[in-house]
């Protein structure tokens, strides 16, 4: 028998299990398998390997679910306790930004006036204004980064 036919049959045997095959391909394969003992053996070996894989028992560690549920509940409690602090942080940031936006024109004028009074270069007092504007965001970002680092450190220690 042509070697190409065996190669096609073997490909279809795998494809049938992985992706599925069309009705005409299934019919062709069935006809070929009736006439070819070596491809029939490949089909049987593939089926045997997959049925062994599907029926493979894995013993679970004793109390795995209970231990995990306990850890998850602890973590959930910890998160609930931290939530108000984080919410407070965001409220403060929002208030700070809202006030910042509302007072920006006045603060700009104040920086401009102070800069002119002490003879400061324009770039310097403009940078001062920019810094004043970004301080709340920088503080909030620093708190969040520090908090995440602390949590990562705790996780590493737990592991």
């Amino acid at each position, binding site marked *: 028998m042509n070697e190409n036919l065996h190669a096609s049959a073997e490909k279809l045997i795998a494809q049938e299990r992985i992706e599925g095959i069309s009705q005409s391909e299934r019919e062709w394969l069935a006809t070929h398998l009736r006439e070819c003992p070596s491809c029939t053996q490949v089909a049987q070996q593939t089926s045997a390997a997959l049925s062994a894989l599907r029926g493979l028992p894995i013993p679970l560690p004793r109390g795995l679910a209970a231990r995990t*549920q306990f850890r998850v509940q602890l973590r959930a409690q910890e*998160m609930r306790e931290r939530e108000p602090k984080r919410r407070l942080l965001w409220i403060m940031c929002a208030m700070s930004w809202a006030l910042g936006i509302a007072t920006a024109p006045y603060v700009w004028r104040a920086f401009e006036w102070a800069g002119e009074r002490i003879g400061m270069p324009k770039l310097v007092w403009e940078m001062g204004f920019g810094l004043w504007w970004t301080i709340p965001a920088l503080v909030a970002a620093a708190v969040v980064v520090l908090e995440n680092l602390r949590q990562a450190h705790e*996780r590493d220690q737990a592991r």
Partner: protein
Amino acid sequence: MSATFTTLTSAPLRSVLLFSAQMADDNKALALGLKRRDPDLLDQLIEQYQYRLFRYLLYLTSSRERAEDFFQETWIRVLERGHQYDSKYKFEAWLFRIARNLVIDWQRAKKMQSLDALTDPEEGAPMEFAAQNQPSPLHLVLTAEEKSGVHASLDRIPTVYREVLVLRFQEELGLEEIAGVLAAPLSTVKSRLYRGLEALRGAMQGGAA
């Protein structure tokens, strides 16, 4: 509306559509519960998926202790990132992806390269957690009977192939879902499955001989 639905669809198609609609509703409820960090839902999910997740992690890490650590860590991540779950996708695919990412992160933290680059035999030398010339941890945890069976055959094939075989034939995930778990193209998933199936058949034949 329901009369139109009944007359326009055949009975098997109708049951498939109803099942899909039911699944979509279940996934939405699940997403909502995860977003709220519902403790009862999490307890139930841990119970429900404990066997499948542990099995996947065991085949991924080849170590019972490490699989147990990652199992717990995965559920902590589910709690923390529950709001990121998209109800369009199967929960188990998302769960396995979290577990896999944790394993990869751990490997990276151990100053190793990514799991894909190291374990894909098409891209380089296959990686196992044990040194190449030593028995793998999976082999060490097997009982004498298990060593001669399908466990041993799985132990002989590279991790990337073992992983897709487990996801496809034990977890019965679709090809797209596996691609989602692996964050890999569909063509890569298919290629690994074909090679993995061939390797498993070969390994089982080798074991039986």
